């Protein structure tokens, strides 16, 4: 079904690129539309980028086509109109109401294409008192309530600011959120024939990550203070107290979470039942939680003797939730990811190839276009799609 869908992608932020990438993997024909003499706000323009950043953009654009249109003349406008009228979906992050952009605004396009599903990514939505505010991965992450929970040990909270997550997680999450809404809108169109306009506020997409915290607020709870150094790595990665922690190993770290009593009993067995483990204060989950700092020190005496993989494997052999704290290099070598052929080979123009992440779902029936054609050059498909170069 997706191979019959034509998608126009107009925009340069990671959310739009990622949403387009997922649609391309699902089999849709995704066409990147770029304009001559019409400025589109760009987060990730490939100019002056490092090789890694250029290849990252190539990975985001794999499987897509690209046209480049000069909007200053009638021919260009006609080309755009034709594309718009023959499309099923438009995804864009172009919010600003510049006159040049009005040709692909929803209010214009819906006049001639009633079945169109239009998806707009913006920082705070286009309604309300912050609709003109600008936002980036950094600023939206900070505002969304996610940052204070991220930081590990802080010794001087007045000097060390909250930090956002790396890897543009907010942008990826927004792109994914847009794709979810879009899939629902397409499903409704299958039934009713009606298209529609869908808007993603990236701020809300990030806030939605904190729904447990929001529920706590609704029930009169308080927000946790920023963790100070005293809680050590026990709190890293959202794990607190006896629920789990990150512990030093001979060659790095290991993350463990023997939170249930039976898991804890097996963990104690694994450590060879040290004397301290029989102390009354560690006998219940609440006791372990209360005394987690001492516990962390005591467990660390044992974990430091072994490698992170040894601990993780012997823990998992006893059905204890534990994993090595991996680097990306470890990840690329991981037998589980490789067994499942998770990574995809992306061919490079010089003949080499790079491994890039695939998708986390294996579908038993629906074909996917995972590898796709290499990222297109700007305007590469003008002849095919517009009939002229």
């Amino acid at each position, binding site marked *: *079904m*997706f191979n019959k869908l034509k998608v126009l992608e107009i925009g340069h932020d990671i959310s739009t690129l990622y949403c387009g990438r997922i649609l391309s993997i699902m089999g849709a024909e995704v066409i990147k539309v770029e304009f001559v003499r019409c400025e589109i706000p760009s987060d990730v323009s490939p100019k002056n980028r490092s090789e*890694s*950043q250029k290849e990252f953009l190539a990975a985001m654009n794999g499987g897509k086509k690209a046209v480049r249109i000069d909007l200053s003349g009638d021919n260009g406008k006609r080309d755009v109109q034709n594309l718009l009228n023959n499309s099923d979906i438009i995804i864009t992050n172009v919010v600003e109401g510049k006159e040049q952009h009005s040709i692909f605004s929803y209010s214009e396009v819906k006049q001639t294409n009633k079945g169109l599903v239009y998806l707009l990514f913006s920082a*705070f939505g286009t309604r309300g008192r912050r609709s003109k*505010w600008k*936002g980036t991965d950094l600023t939206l992450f*900070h*505002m969304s309530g996610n940052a204070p929970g*991220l930081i*590990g040990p802080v010794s001087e909270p007045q000097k060390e*600011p909250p*930090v*956002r997550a*790396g*890897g543009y997680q907010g942008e990826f*999450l927004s792109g*994914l*959120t*847009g794709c979810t*809404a879009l899939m*629902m809108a397409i*499903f*409704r169109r*299958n*039934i*009713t024939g009606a298209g529609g306009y*869908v808007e993603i*506020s990236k701020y*809300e997409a990030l806030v939605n990550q*904190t*729904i447990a915290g*929001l*529920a*706590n*607020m*609704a*029930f009169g*709870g308080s927000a946790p203070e920023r963790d100070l150094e005293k809680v050590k790595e026990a709190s890293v*990665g959202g794990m607190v107290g006896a629920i*789990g922690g990150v512990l030093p190993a001979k060659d790095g770290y290991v993350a463990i979470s023997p*939170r249930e009593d039976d898991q804890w009993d097996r963990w104690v067995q694994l450590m060879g039942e040290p004397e301290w483990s029989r102390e009354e204060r560690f006998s219940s989950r609440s006791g372990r939680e209360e005394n987690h700092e001492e516990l962390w020190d005591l467990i660390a005496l044992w974990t430091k003797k072994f490698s992170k993989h040894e601990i993780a494997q012997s823990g*998992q052999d006893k059905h*204890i939730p534990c994993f090595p*704290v991996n680097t990306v*290099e*470890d990840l*690329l070598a991981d*037998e*589980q990811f490789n067994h*499942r052929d998770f990574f995809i080979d992306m061919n490079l123009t010089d003949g080499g190839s*790079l491994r890039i*992440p695939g998708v*986390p*779902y*294996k*579908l*038993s*029936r*629906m074909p996917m276009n995972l590898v796709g054609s290499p990222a297109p050059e700007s305007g590469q498909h003008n002849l095919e799609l517009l009939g002229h170069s």
Partner: protein
Amino acid sequence: MRLPLDGIRVLDLSWIIAGPTATRLLAIMGAEVVKIGSSRRPDPSYSGPAFHSYNQSKHYASINIASEQGVEIVRTLASLSDVVIENFATGVIERRGLGYQELRKLNPSIIMISSSGVGHTGPKKDHVAYGSLLQHYTGWNSQSGYPGGTPIKGGLWADPWVGMELAMVIATCLNYRASSGEGQYVDFSMAEALVGSMAMSVIHQQITGQPLLPQGNEDYFDLHSGVYPCEGDDRWVSLSVRSLEQWRSLCDLVGALEFKSENPKNTLSKRGANNFISNWTRQHSDLEATEALQSLGIASAPSWNVYHVYQDDFLKESNYLVETETNDGETRFMPGVPWWFDDGLTPNVKAAPKLGRDNRLIFRDLLGIEDKEYLGLVKSKVLE
């Protein structure tokens, strides 16, 4: 206005966080979600506030699926459903006789999605996992932290992220079924969901042979960015400068005139300008600073915790936070969905149920179990 998933029934055998946050989105968008639970094996979040957001707008029926009759009832429910979702440890659902191969015999076009920590194939398929551990296993957390610091800080929380991706895949499969008539089985790996967004780190490692170090509050795609202290205790403002014009406006605002014509990427200019910026931000509240910067066209926002987010009226105005009567009879603002359809569609944001609240609706009305049999099932603890 019709909700997109009106008429779709989802049998929800998932629990804890990732699965429930997915079916929550489906329920709010119109699907009839039938969550199955048992007092013998309560959902770990059941007694806390989070349950009220993870399970909004669902039906909740109590069935002991460790019993043969319980399994039989679940099989009948599956035969009447469009989608089944589960996140038991690998192999559990098959041992109970509820695997995809069994369910498709009853309902050939069923969509079944099985989510687990690392997927249902491979040498680690039986590994016991929690989302927070997978954030470490995948290197996801290694991307975050202060520049130059130890890269073992956290990332975004895995579970609700996975919930969003599960909902996306389910909606995709519904689309595929609408055109092909075919259901299917989905093997979903939470760990892979995290790595799905790690293209930049994965590519950098291969090209340079080195890990992409945490950039903290700096940004590859900004000319200048940072987080600065504001008036008050532990209050901060973030900003991103994307053009030289914005840089010049910022220098004017904070009085850093000598850096106005300098390259913001130059380390010395950056350090010098940062002193001016901090001196200025310290004299303002986080929101005052944000508003002043936004009025110059510079992306900026306070760095908030969830209390600040909730207290700010903006999310109520945008209808993300929706006034709901929760199942204790109180009225509260609860989270809705992070999207907006402009055609008058009102998301179905309702309270999370109590366990067993919908037993009558599901067992008598939907399955047609007679009163006498129903009472027998309660007595024999099949429904509990």
